């Protein structure tokens, strides 16, 4: 398989997205099919690149430009791992969207932005140049902005603007850091500066970008507010894929490319610990189903960041597995929440209860995904959580390990509370299984994946350990 497969993987969704509004004017079914094909193309191409990458021959494309602004794509195990994870979840979410948003305005823009976002994500994970990483980073912010504002209410647009401003501020500060790297090395090319030691101030500047995109304390505020978006959007952007950009860049830069000071193996985990505890605490108190899951996302992202920043191979392995498990399970949770919201037309969990009777499949899927997020064996999330905490403890930080175990306990508490309030107890409404078969099937697939990835853990962990070994 030649390196061109990377170009197909990136360009088909990236440029194909602009065809979708045109197709939408002709025929809605055609547009939906095209959106699905473009998204699935990304997944298929990433999968096609897999055998060679696993065999130890990374695919690469490279064009030299003046000023160290080379343009290139590079597929190593880490990139392909991220690409597969994102495009898999994205494909399922696109299928789910067919039913979910069919009754709203602005569908053409919706599919265009979703598809553009997938292309952007592929471009971001394969880029070899800091400037192109930044470019894709910002395109994803534009998609995020339009998609949060999907319903066009005053409040949704204010929230969309907030998300845009926070992430763009973070990205701009990060860009200052990138230019600082350029000042030091004279290039933006990641391969050319591999192994450079970065001064602390540059790391801190880049961390602003990472923390804002991955919604980690203290730049986490936009994520719960972004829950005003349609549920598939929340699922795709604010649980499964977009928020992983930050931690991916952390892995790409600070684990894979540069050397950074030892102090960050303590400082970043402490930030993560604060983030995990604070957001888990808020999740216990919230009554809005999507805000609870959003705060849970913030909390789980902190676990990923912890693993990647622990400085141990086992922690990094755990962090990477966590990205996969969390994408699948949290994506599933948001989609379930979407079905619930779609049925009851409310997001307030105090007005819900006993939904298990009406929608057993959704309830079960929710439960499975929740188990994975909680870290109950044998669900996938368990292994990731275990490895992350093992990683920080083997780095010698027993105290932080204990904090994160507390965080994990809180996860169990708030997700159990959510499940009990929504699906068990007194029946407050007589909702039948109102989620359409397509929507229910999507969440069931994600739930099954959560179990399957856990039971056959040797496969994803072998994959992820290849990345860890490569590092």
């Amino acid at each position, binding site marked *: 398989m030649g390196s061109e497969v990377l170009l197909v993987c990136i360009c088909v969704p990236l440029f194909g997205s602009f065809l979708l509004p045109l197709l939408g004017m002709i025929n809605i079914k055609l547009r939906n099919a095209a959106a699905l094909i473009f998204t699935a193309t990304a997944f298929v191409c990433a999968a096609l690149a897999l055998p060679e990458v696993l065999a130890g021959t990374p695919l690469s494309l490279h064009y030299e430009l003046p000023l160290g602004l080379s343009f290139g794509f590079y597929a190593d195990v880490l990139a392909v791992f991220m690409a597969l994870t994102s495009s898999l979840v994205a494909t399922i979410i696109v299928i789910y969207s067919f039913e979910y948003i069919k009754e709203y305005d602005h569908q053409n823009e919706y599919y265009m932005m979703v598809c553009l976002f997938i292309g952007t994500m592929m471009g971001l994970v394969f880029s070899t140049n800091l400037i192109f990483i930044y470019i894709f980073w910002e*395109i994803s912010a534009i998609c995020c902005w339009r998609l949060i504002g999907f319903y066009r209410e005053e409040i949704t647009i204010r929230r969309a603007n907030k998300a845009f401003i926070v992430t763009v501020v973070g990205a*701009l500060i990060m860009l200052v850091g990138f230019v600082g790297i350029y000042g030091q090395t004279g290039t933006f090319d990641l391969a050319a500066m591999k192994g450079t030691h970065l001064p602390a101030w540059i790391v801190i500047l880049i961390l602003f970008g990472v923390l804002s995109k991955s919604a980690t304390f203290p730049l986490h505020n936009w994520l719960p507010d972004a829950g005003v978006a349609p549920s598939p959007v929340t699922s795709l952007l604010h649980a499964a894929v977009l928020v992983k950009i930050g931690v991916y860049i952390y892995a790409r830069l600070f684990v894979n490319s540069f050397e950074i000071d030892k102090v960050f193996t303590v400082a970043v985990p402490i930030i993560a610990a604060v983030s995990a505890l604070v957001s888990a605490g808020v999740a216990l108190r919230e009554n809005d189903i999507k805000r609870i899951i959003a705060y849970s996302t913030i909390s789980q992202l902190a676990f990923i960041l912890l693993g990647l920043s622990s400085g141990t191979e086992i922690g990094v392995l755990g962090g990477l597995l966590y990205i996969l498990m969390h994408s699948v399970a949290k994506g599933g949770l948001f989609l379930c929440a979407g079905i619930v919201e779609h049925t009851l037309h409310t997001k307030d969990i105090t007005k819900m209860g006993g939904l298990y009777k009406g929608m057993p499949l959704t309830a079960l899927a929710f439960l499975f995904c929740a188990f994975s997020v909680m870290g109950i064996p044998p669900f996938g999330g368990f292994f990731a959580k275990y490895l992350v905490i093992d990683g920080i403890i083997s780095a010698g930080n027993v105290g932080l390990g204990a904090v994160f175990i507390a965080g994990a306990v809180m996860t169990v508490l708030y997700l159990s509370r959510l499940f009990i309030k929504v699906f068990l107890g007194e029946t407050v409404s007589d909702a039948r299984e109102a989620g359409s078969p397509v929507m229910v099937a999507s969440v069931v697939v994600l739930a099954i994946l959560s179990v399957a990835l856990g039971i056959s853990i040797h496969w994803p962990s072998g994959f992820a350990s290849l990345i860890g070994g490569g590092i």
Partner: protein
Amino acid sequence: MQVIEYTTLLVFAVPLVILLINILLPRQLAEKSSIGLAYLAPLVQIVATAAGLVQIAQLKQHEFAISWNLAGAVSVRFAVNVFSLVLLFCIGMVTLAAIMVANRTVPQKRAGFAGLLMMLIVGMNGMVLVTDLFSLYVFLEIVGISSFVLIAMFKSDTGLEGAFKYLVMSVLASIMILTGLAFVFMQTGSLQYDQVGAAGGALVGPGAPHLALMYTAMALMIAGFAIKTGAVPFHSWLPDAHQSANTAVSVLLSGIVIKIAGIYGFIVITNFFGRLPGIDLTLALIGTVSIVVGALFALRQSHFKRIVAYSSVSQMGYILLGLSTGSVLGLLGAVAHVFNHATFKSTLFTNAAAVHEQTGTYDINELGGLEKKMPVTSFSSLAAFMSTAGIPPFAGFWSKLLIIMALWNSGDWVFAAIALIASIFTAAYFLRLQRKVFFGKLLDKFAQLTEIGGSVKWAQIMLTVVTIAAGLLFPFALRYFGGIGIL
């Protein structure tokens, strides 16, 4: 004869001939046909400069003279290099957009508009091509006078205040620049660029003579060109002039006039005197203050055109920052930003015209949810604003990046960081305008609204295509400049 010679001849000859025809035609006929005829000048200019850009890659620089002997003492010499060609291209592009807008927004005095526009084009082309400071001043005056009349001639709109303010400030600037020129002449004994440049170089270092005179000259010229640019603290005329001008004239004014009349003056100054201690810092400070203050003022406005005008003030700051580095990279960044700003600012004023034509108001508080009814206007304003805010992949990102890199290379990392992070103010006022005007629920009173048609719509499409294409293809532009040996 080489292509480039046609280029340089055509950019003077075509507008002058059109001006002549415009005057000679009978009044009735001129009113009808003048706008159509005027299209010719920018179109020829765009094609000619594009051809010139292809050829200059081999020539680097080309000199020519009109009417006079090239070697003679009193000749007016003209020269083109790659940067002036880019500027000429911008002039062509913006005037084309302005004519397309004028076709709709200028119901009467069309012949007068077209004639003045031709004069303006000649003035701007002349400024970019001359090789001595005095001729620069002469063409600057042509630009100043014709743009004053353009602003004032449609006084039915909102009165003369803005135009009058512009006239006063502009004349003040001219006097300052002329006095500064006199001082430079006293110091160097010549106003030819090459001799001034040599004299400027000799002024650097300890024991240089008459520095006080030189600094007075610099202070006067910087202040003069800063007024023409609309940089803070000399910006107050710009929003008023825009508010009272016809929108087609606004396109011209913000799109190109402030850049040629103001920024090009700074390019000349920094080219020759940039190494005088303190000049770079002055420019950098004016630039930084303009960026921040302009953007903050834009946040408070509710008049569509005033927001865009203050945005111009802010963007001029980036160009000044690029020039303050004195490096080729900085100059390239500045010229690239001139190009990008010409594109996206013309787009925004075109959008203002479209919104005003269709809804009858410029007040953003009275608008809402227009994207559904005016998709072209909405999308082009989105692309233009993204480009203004320097959000990739739109073109504005690249020129800002070059400016930031140039600043960083010359050690001004504080300014680089401020300039980058100040982009967020740009994003803030643009999000506010988008939310109030386009993004949101359609107000009931606009249920019957339709998209603008005709030439204005085509202007929007053309400019948006340029913005997006420039953003996506900028790496090729970098390769082009690298190929010439500039990078």
